[in-house]
């Protein structure tokens, strides 16, 4: 459909230089990915707002907020993962450039997480990929009184602090130990893929301008979980062969 106006093979102008493959492989990854990158978000935007908006394109598997490394608070971008490719494409088609929290957000295909990508060097927070900002500057829409009210309202909002609370207190050093232990436990219960952790992982991304964008992302699930992403069923199925395969890999 609508082949006249876009080259379906060029679905992203960006090339993430961290991608460990050729340009061809990169494009292939984008064309099969079920992850979208969302940029130019308000720092106040919550996962629940994202869920409400993005679930209108399809069932959501995960949301990964981009966090500022130092403050452990959202810094304007995130990743949303879907179950199906079709829903992923619809999210890019129908949501990119529309307004969320008074800001035109940008939605792009992302090549998806792979083991190792999350271990980067960190320097600063913030996002770079925001080409819509100049097109639809919300400050132009909101001027005078409206803007003041807007600011006042925003100031009353609280950003979600991902750095405190019962779940945030896990240390990465405990990870491998816990992982093994829980795998065994869940094997007994015949539903092993529940082996995951909340953890703060450093994620590094680079954009076209080769400016370094360093962010901290709260990632659900260990690296293994992410590699197996495609196999993640909508339901955890007792005795599902995929899960058993995962188990074997984890135990090795």
């Amino acid at each position, binding site marked *: *459909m*609508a*082949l*006249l*106006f*876009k080259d379906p093979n060029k679905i992203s102008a960006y090339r993430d230089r961290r991608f460990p493959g050729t340009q061809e492989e990169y494009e292939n990854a984008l064309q099969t990915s079920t992850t979208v990158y969302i940029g130019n978000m308000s720092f106040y935007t919550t*996962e*629940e*707002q994202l*869920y*409400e*908006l993005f679930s*209108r*394109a399809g*069932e959501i598997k*995960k*949301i*990964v*907020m981009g966090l500022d490394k130092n403050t452990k608070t959202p810094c304007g971008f995130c990743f949303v993962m879907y*179950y*199906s490719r079709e829903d992923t494409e619809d999210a890019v*088609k*129908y*949501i990119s450039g*529309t*307004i*969320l929290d*008074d800001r035109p957000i940008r939605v792009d295909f992302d090549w998806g997480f792979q083991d190792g990508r999350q271990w980067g060097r960190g320097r600063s927070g913030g996002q770079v990929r925001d080409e819509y900002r100049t097109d639809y500057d919300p400050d132009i*829409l*909101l001027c005078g009184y409206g803007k003041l009210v807007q600011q006042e*309202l925003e100031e009353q*909002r609280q950003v*979600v602090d*991902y750095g405190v*609370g*019962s*779940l945030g*207190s*896990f240390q990465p050093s*405990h990870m491998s130990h*816990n992982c093994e*232990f*829980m795998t065994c*436990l*869940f094997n007994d*219960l015949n539903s092993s893929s*529940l082996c*995951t*952790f*909340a953890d703060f992982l450093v994620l590094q991304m680079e954009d076209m301008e080769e400016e370094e964008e360093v962010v901290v992302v*709260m990632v*659900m*699930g260990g690296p293994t979980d992410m590699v197996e992403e495609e196999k993640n*069923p*909508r*339901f*955890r*199925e*007792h005795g*599902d062969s995929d899960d058993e395969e995962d188990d074997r890999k984890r135990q090795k």
Partner: protein
Amino acid sequence: MSSWRSLILRIGEKSSEYGGVIDFKDHIDACFGAVRRELDHSEDEILTFLLQCSEQLPHKIPLYGTLIGLLNLENEDFVKKIVESTQKSLQDALDTGDCNKIRVSMRFLTVLMCSKVIQPSSLVVIFETLLSSAATIVDDEKGNPSWQARADFFITCILSCLPWGGSELVEQIPEEIERVMVGIEAYLSIRRHVSDVGLSVFEDINKINKLHVEQDFVEDLWSRIQDLSKNSWKLESVPRPHLLYEAQLVAGKSHDFGPIICQEQSDTPVELSRLNFGRQKHEAELKYPQRIRRLNIFSASKFEDLQPIDRFVVEEYLLDVLFYLNGCRKEFAACMVGLPVPFRYEYLMAETIFSQLLLLPQPPFKPMYYTLVIIDLCKSLPGAFPAVVAGAVRALFDRISELDMECRTRLILWFSHHLSNFQFIWPWEEWAYVLELPKWAPQRVFVQEVLDREVRLSYWDKVKQSIESTPALEELLPPKGGPDFRYSSDDGDKTEYTLSKELNSMVKGRKTARDVIIWLEESVTPINGLDVSLRVVVQTLLDIGSKSFTHLITVLERYGQVIAKICPNEETQIMLISEVSSFWKNSAQTTAITIDRMMGYRLISNLAIVKWVFSPSNIDLFHITDRLWEILINALNKTHNRISDLRKEISHLKKSVVKAEQIAATAKAELDNAENKLMLVDGEPVVGENPARMKRLKSNAEKTKENEVTTRESLESKEALFERALEENEALFLSLYKNFSTVLMERLHETFGEKTLDHVGGDSEAMAVDEEDTSAMDMDKENGNSKSNVGYTIGEKEQWCLSTLGYVKAFSRQYASEIWPHMVKLEEEVVTESVHPLFRKAVYSGLRLHADQ
């Protein structure tokens, strides 16, 4: 883009390629000149691109047709190829049932006929082929009338060509076209009138004296074409650029158009039972859906003096642009507002888009697409379109009590999303009167649900600010508070408070799920009982996971096993859901998400969700909030998604098995071949090249065989899962309908009285349902239900019944494909003779199974 390309692409547009002016003659001349120059170098590219443009920009077909007519004078061979590939693609489209392609190809051929590229009689041959196929389909003996949707589609295609070439056909071959028209008339007399009860956006509860039967889509189009014919085939909406070149075009050579074949409906059982007929009809309607169902929400004055046929043509243009330019926002908006017609059509455009947003059973694209469409058009036509959209909202709001439940949900989702893109500005004061209506009045529920969705997309204070002009509406905002954690203070039960604290510190102290289970089993449950354990665990874990969606997932992934351990059966799972619902009573969204995730982790079964939704305290909320319906819809969707995934995986694996078999067979053959050769040269010391090769072949044969076996095994295991999923699905729908039937039975009888029951016995099903319908209407009449906005006087029980029946119909329609395989059992066990006729009517109309079959 080279210049011939952009000239072809931009023809007829106010674009820089054509100096920003629209003059068809100039455009065609310029484009023709450029294409003619390049034809020798890039014939193939031009051919492909021209065909692509005529398919994907069908509103420009008359221009492309004329261009091709002119090229025919220069290069007959090139145009011959165009005709041949059109013939091929039409045949492909007919074989695969590609409706859009069939329709557009036929329009293209009509225009080629106008430009003398093909003979008018060739076109008539195509018409007659489709006509005879249609007539066969609806023939009781030779055909299969359950596939009437396909026959109707063929007739629609023929009629749709006439605005583009009717005048030429009548002028050049009057007798032949007359024969086609007579044939269509004959077809119309044998086909069945299509009743849209199950698919109409508005339920006709107010049309008490509905004497005339409304025309269905084919009848309607037929009468528009009759009007066109009476008007000497003159219309405003189709440009006729070929007339500018009439003198030249006559000299062109007409090309032969190869025959077209319509495959017969393969599935033609001798006798169709009622259910079999219904199921096949459902299948046919899915494959050949009706393109549009007019909403008629604007008064006729908004359409000026549009001829009926012009309205049809503009709708065709708009639907084509919506379809072909999905995903290209800029081009889409430009095409939508720049159609080649000499009149304004904003109202028609808005009505067409809303008709798609609300199209039943499914719009061609996700409803969210139409949100984007409306946003983009508001930006493209800032002076005109927003007001028209607002007018559509008001018109739909005025009829909200008649609106189908599925449509109402789509409207709520669209409207909240739309407003979130326009700073939540809406003249809420207009709707302030809903506060005076009872809390179950559909208008009031609509406002409340829109505000709830707005809060989800934004935040409470922001939405509060947006209703500043009507502060009283705050009453309809969802509660502002966050979670309602039972143990946030020690005011309540001290023991439970302490246990919760203890559990919290176990989580903080990184205790494992197993540690927690041991703690519960050894020191909590034996002393305090299971109820307390369940409450403490669920409340505490929800509190820990309350900060965000990710926190919730984390806690469920880490401690889900604890919940699974204490909620192993339906009964305890229902308690679990109740606990979730009470913890998140201030947030419909988080309640729904939490239940959805718990179902995802198999902590809750879909059956438990159904049972909980139909628990006594929830039933009373059916007509005043959507929150329970959302939870139920999520559960059905998730189950459905899962089955769809399995279907896809199985079909994929089946292909893999075939492929693996082939590869293994080839490897085996190669090995056999090599072995045979060895035997032939037996006796001689053949050490040479062969042992290594043999080894390789052998290992390859083994490996490929192994792969074949594994693939087959995974197919088998998926098939087993699928079998089980089907069984679960059957149980789910049986339970759903049983629950509906039970809760409706008593209330329907109470509300709609004995009168209904008197009419049930003895009559045919059709009679019973019809009379029931009338009695329901009388009821409304007695209650003084007038159509005025404010005068909503439907009693609480009636509204409860109407809302619940509305959902019965909506669910039946949406999951019809999943329900049909279980229909026999459903009729045996649930939708029996003894159910209330209104309930049966809702189920049947949702499934499009009519009593007259």
